[in-house]
């Protein structure tokens, strides 16, 4: 077994290679914009060059004269498109700005779309459109004149439960040591390598949409509403997604526009938006600010925690993530008081981005924890051990499972943390200052409504169908593994089909719920198949299993088996007189409304977990990072990182390892590289391309070790799975920041940590 495919420990599945791996590396995998359609026309978007104001006129003369141009769509000829609002499933509610004008709400708003016979003609015509704007002063971010701040608890009844318990003022007044600090995180964009694409094909009154999506049924239903057609008229297909990270979870304005154009032109229309357009036609991670007050007694016991967050959003939308909900559950804090504000600026609406609530909020609290440990003179790991808890500090509810300190102990041992000299600036290698830091990773465990259809043939071949999404995560593989395991066939006998709204619906691929939700639905369908086979085998008049207790039967190696007796599947199928058994199953979380599955068909997922059930459900990890900072020029490098994570049942150690390692690398990126820069005067994104929006390259990523810590949690969902997709990148930025402090004695409280902050 290689490091990339760790030997499974207790409660872990085999590191099966990705079912779709070969197709992807050989280029056979067809992403949505690769799907062959007949005689497509090509669209090119025109986006606004101002952040706020009004379009006076669009001069189309030169553009329409470009040979091959078929039509140009603006706010003047797209009025039939419905303005829709859609609840976003997770934190908060979100709409996106959907009108093409004449009002301009943000930089890069779609204001027109050119459709032509070729991509090149559409692009040339798009460049030739002359837009006359009446520009108004725009407020890009915090501190800009004209932004408006709202307390989220005042927004609506369903606003997030903002945790509070006890008297924080009194607790902090009585604390021996208090940290009072402010932290900030920047705007970030998902930048999946697969661009935002949409291809729409009408066949009579039926529409097929090829678009990379994290929610096939959400896209299907919302496109139908946007075009005012029935959902049964719309099919959405997205067999492969080239990265999404939350950016492809919601309907965005381009989809309705492309469908509208295809209907008007009686011709398929294909749009591949450019990289820079992706910064403004989809969502992003909002910049945040935090003020934290954290107090402890001299012995390290926390007594009070206050956390106020500020998040940027657009003018019309009230999007927020409010990660205090999770941060407030992390330790035995004593008294807790939290508050979340949104700050309306002249920006596009932010949205989900990998681990939306916890990335900024856990960065802040985990840095504050390190600051307090330093003030107390305590080892940061021991400080967390002293304040570990098995119950919710807010409600007193128990955790379903919590292996935080096991993660710390295993990661610390692998990192050789015990060799750390705690004094900042004390460790050196020539001209390089060395720093070691650590932080907690945490992510709420979500379980969502899902359905699946499983077919077992007499020859042992299995087909699994669910309209779930493989964003590169391994969903095809782990969903197939669950069927192989429950039906007792080799993994190679299973074929998984995903990414098509003709398949039974699955939840949105958000909140790291796919493995838990889909595997639970597949399990249920497999159990129905097993029940039929067991009944047939056990109630037969003859045969090796006749008269066996059904509870003693199982499926293994292509056979129905009991203790000491078995018969091939084909025999059991003969007894049933069928060639295949196909079962459809629905799975919904406990406490879900009775119509949860009907809602799922209508594009509304139901997710439970985190802080909301009878028990707290969270996955934990611990991350350790070494940084090296040059003593003169202050470049920051990360030679090694170690993370240990516990996620309940691990379906596949290879895909789990890959998710967590990729997450840690993204965390390093958040700490040191990534930020979308915004022009302070023009309120426009400046570095809207992959050359200037920095993410780590291979030279920035050296040793990254992932440890999977065995954990069993039967409470979280039938599959026993805690989602891992959004765990690895939480806490990393704090670990890096804490390591930079240890290396230099400088506490940088604004991400990313660029070298000029250390000069």
């Amino acid at each position, binding site marked *: 077994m290689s490091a990339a495919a760790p030997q499974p420990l207790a409660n872990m599945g085999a590191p099966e290679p990705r079912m779709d791996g070969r197709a992807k590396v050989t280029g056979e995998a067809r992403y949505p914009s690769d799907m062959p359609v007949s005689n497509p026309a090509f669209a090119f978007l025109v*986006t606004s*060059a101002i952040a706020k104001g009004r379009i006076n006129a669009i001069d189309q003369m030169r553009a329409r004269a470009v040979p091959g141009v078929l039509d140009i769509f603006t706010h003047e000829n797209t009025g039939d498109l419905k303005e829709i609002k859609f609840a976003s499933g997770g934190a908060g509610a979100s709409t996106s700005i959907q009108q093409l004008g004449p009002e301009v709400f943000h930089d890069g708003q779609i204001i027109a779309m050119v459709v032509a016979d070729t991509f*090149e*003609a559409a*692009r*040339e015509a798009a*460049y030739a459109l002359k837009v006359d704007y009446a520009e108004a002063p725009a407020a890009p971010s915090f501190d800009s004149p004209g932004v408006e701040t709202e307390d989220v608890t005042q927004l609506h009844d369903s606003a997030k439960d903002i945790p509070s318990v006890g008297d924080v003022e009194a607790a902090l007044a009585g604390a021996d040591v208090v940290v009072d600090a402010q932290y900030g995180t920047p705007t970030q964009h998902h930048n999946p390598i697969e661009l935002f694409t949409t291809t729409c094909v009408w066949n009579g009154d039926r529409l097929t949409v090829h678009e990379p999506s994290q929610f096939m049924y959400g896209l299907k239903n919302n496109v139908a509403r946007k075009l005012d057609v029935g959902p049964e008229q719309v099919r959405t297909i997205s067999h492969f997604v080239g990265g999404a990270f939350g950016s492809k979870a919601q309907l965005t304005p381009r989809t309705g526009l492309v469908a509208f154009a295809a209907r008007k032109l009686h011709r398929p229309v294909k749009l591949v938006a450019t990289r*820079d357009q992706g910064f403004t036609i989809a969502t992003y991670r909002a910049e945040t600010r935090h003020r934290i007050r954290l107090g402890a007694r001299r012995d390290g016991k926390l007594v009070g925690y206050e956390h106020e967050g500020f998040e940027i959003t657009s003018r019309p939308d009230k999007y927020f993530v409010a990660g205090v909900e999770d941060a407030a559950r992390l330790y035995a804090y004593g008294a807790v008081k939290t508050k979340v504000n949104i700050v309306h600026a002249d920006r596009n609406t932010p949205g989900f981005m990998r681990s939306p609530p916890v990335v900024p909020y856990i960065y802040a609290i985990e840095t504050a924890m390190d600051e307090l440990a330093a003030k107390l003179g305590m080892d940061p790991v021991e400080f967390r051990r002293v304040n570990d808890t098995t119950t919710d500090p807010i409600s007193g509810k128990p955790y379903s499972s919590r292996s935080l300190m096991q993660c710390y102990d295993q990661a610390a041992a692998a990192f050789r943390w015990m060799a750390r000299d705690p004094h900042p600036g004390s460790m050196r290698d020539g001209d390089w200052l060395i720093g070691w830091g650590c932080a907690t990773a945490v992510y709420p465990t979500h379980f969502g409504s899902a359905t699946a259809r499983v077919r077992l043939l007499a020859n042992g071949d299995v087909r699994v169908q669910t309209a779930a999404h493989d964003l590169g995560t391994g969903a095809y593989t782990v969903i197939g593994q669950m069927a192989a395991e429950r039906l007792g066939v080799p993994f190679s006998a299973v074929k998984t089909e995903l990414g098509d709204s003709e398949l039974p619906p699955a939840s949105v691929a958000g909140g790291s719920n796919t493995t838990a939700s889909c595997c639970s639905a597949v399990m249920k369908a497999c159990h129905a198949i097993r029940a039929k086979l067991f009944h047939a085998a056990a109630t037969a008049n003859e045969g090796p299993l006749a008269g066996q207790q059904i509870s003693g039967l199982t499926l293994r190696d292509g056979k129905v088996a009991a203790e000491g007796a078995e018969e091939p599947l084909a025999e059991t199928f003969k007894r049933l007189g069928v060639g295949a058994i196909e079962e459809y199953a629905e799975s919904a979380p406990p406490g879900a409304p009775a119509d949860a599955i009907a809602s799922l068909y209508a594009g509304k997922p139901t997710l439970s977990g985190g802080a909301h059930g009878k028990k707290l459900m969270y996955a934990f990890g611990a991350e350790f990072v070494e940084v090296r900072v040059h003593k*003169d*020029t*202050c*470049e920051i*490098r990360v030679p090694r990182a170690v993370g240990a994570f516990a996620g309940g049942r691990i379906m596949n150690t290879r895909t789990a390892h890959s998710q967590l390692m990729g997450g840690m690398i993204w965390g390093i990126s958040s700490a*040191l*590289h990534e930020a979308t*820069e*915004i*022009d*302070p*005067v*023009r309120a*426009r994104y*400046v*570095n*809207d391309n992959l*050359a*200037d929006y*920095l993410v*780590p*390259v*291979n*030279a*920035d990523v050296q040793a990254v070790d992932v440890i999977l810590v065995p954990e069993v949690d039967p409470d979280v969902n039938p599959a026993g799975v805690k989602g891992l997709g959004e765990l690895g990148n939480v806490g990393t930025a704090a670990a890096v920041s804490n390591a930079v402090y240890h290396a230099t004695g400088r506490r940088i409280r604004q991400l990313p940590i*660029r*070298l*000029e902050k250390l*000069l």
Partner: protein
Amino acid sequence: MRPFIYTRANSPSFAVQTFPSGSAGPDVESPGQYLAGGTNLIDLMKIDVLRPQHVIDINALASSPLGIISTNAQELRLGALVHMADAADHPEINRAVPVIAQSLRLAASQQLRNMASLGGNVLQRTRCPYYRDVSYSQCNKRRPGSGCAALDGFNRMHAVLGTSDQCIATYPGDFAQALIALDAQVELQGANGTRAISVGALHRRPGDRPDLETTLAPGEMITAFVIKPAPWMRRSLYLKIRDRGSYEFALASAAVAMDLEDGRVREARIALGGVATVPWRAQAAEALLRDQLFSEANAQAAADAAFAGARTREHNAFKVELGKRTLKRALTEVAAMEA
């Protein structure tokens, strides 16, 4: 796409004769552009920044002296169409002039270095985002007289040396710094024949004409770079400080070469990158080191002198301190080299 004429040249003289007459220079309506590796030109054409009417592909000239590296006792000659990767990997260049090899190896990515030519590299356009995005109406380099959005915009990456009130765009390359530190000559061929000038005279500071980036005559083509051997070439290096480990432009860089005998600096050569509007020779700093014993204090004094004329903006003030530290570190490291 925007139509243009494409011609493949099979000789330098054909190329320069084919180059369309009329106003030249880098402005958007430039009548002609030579195409070598295409790693910069094609990008800028796709994003509508450069709109040549005529593209003359000179890659076929790589089989002429333009594609050859030659070294002998009299000179190191680098053809303009030599790929960056080939020069970076050349054993004799690595041995005899490390600053050349390092400046190339620390630029771009391996894939780009495999494509990009040396001649094109020294003419690489700025990465100023306001230049590269035509939706910004203000850019004096792209649209003369329209203003400069970088002055009050996001200018962390912008220059602090050689700026004007019209333009603060940073020269993005690395190799040209090594060339000017070594007093390299650049050989040119134009409609009226050939000439050679110092590489240091190739780039123009923005002044009040940021659209004019070089002193090349219309249609004039770089054919070679020539470096004469000098006692400071072996003791030379390129130090590049940037936001990530590879594939990123410099926040500050220094090309340094030194002739050191018994701790005394007989000659020092310094060029700076990432901080200036053109490849920046720091002669005042060189003068402070020359004929002195090398010391930390002298290196600091040289670094201070190099940035004496710096002019900063809202987000790039750090480049003065970073640039000084980069130069001081480079000088310290080059003085410690075995040469």
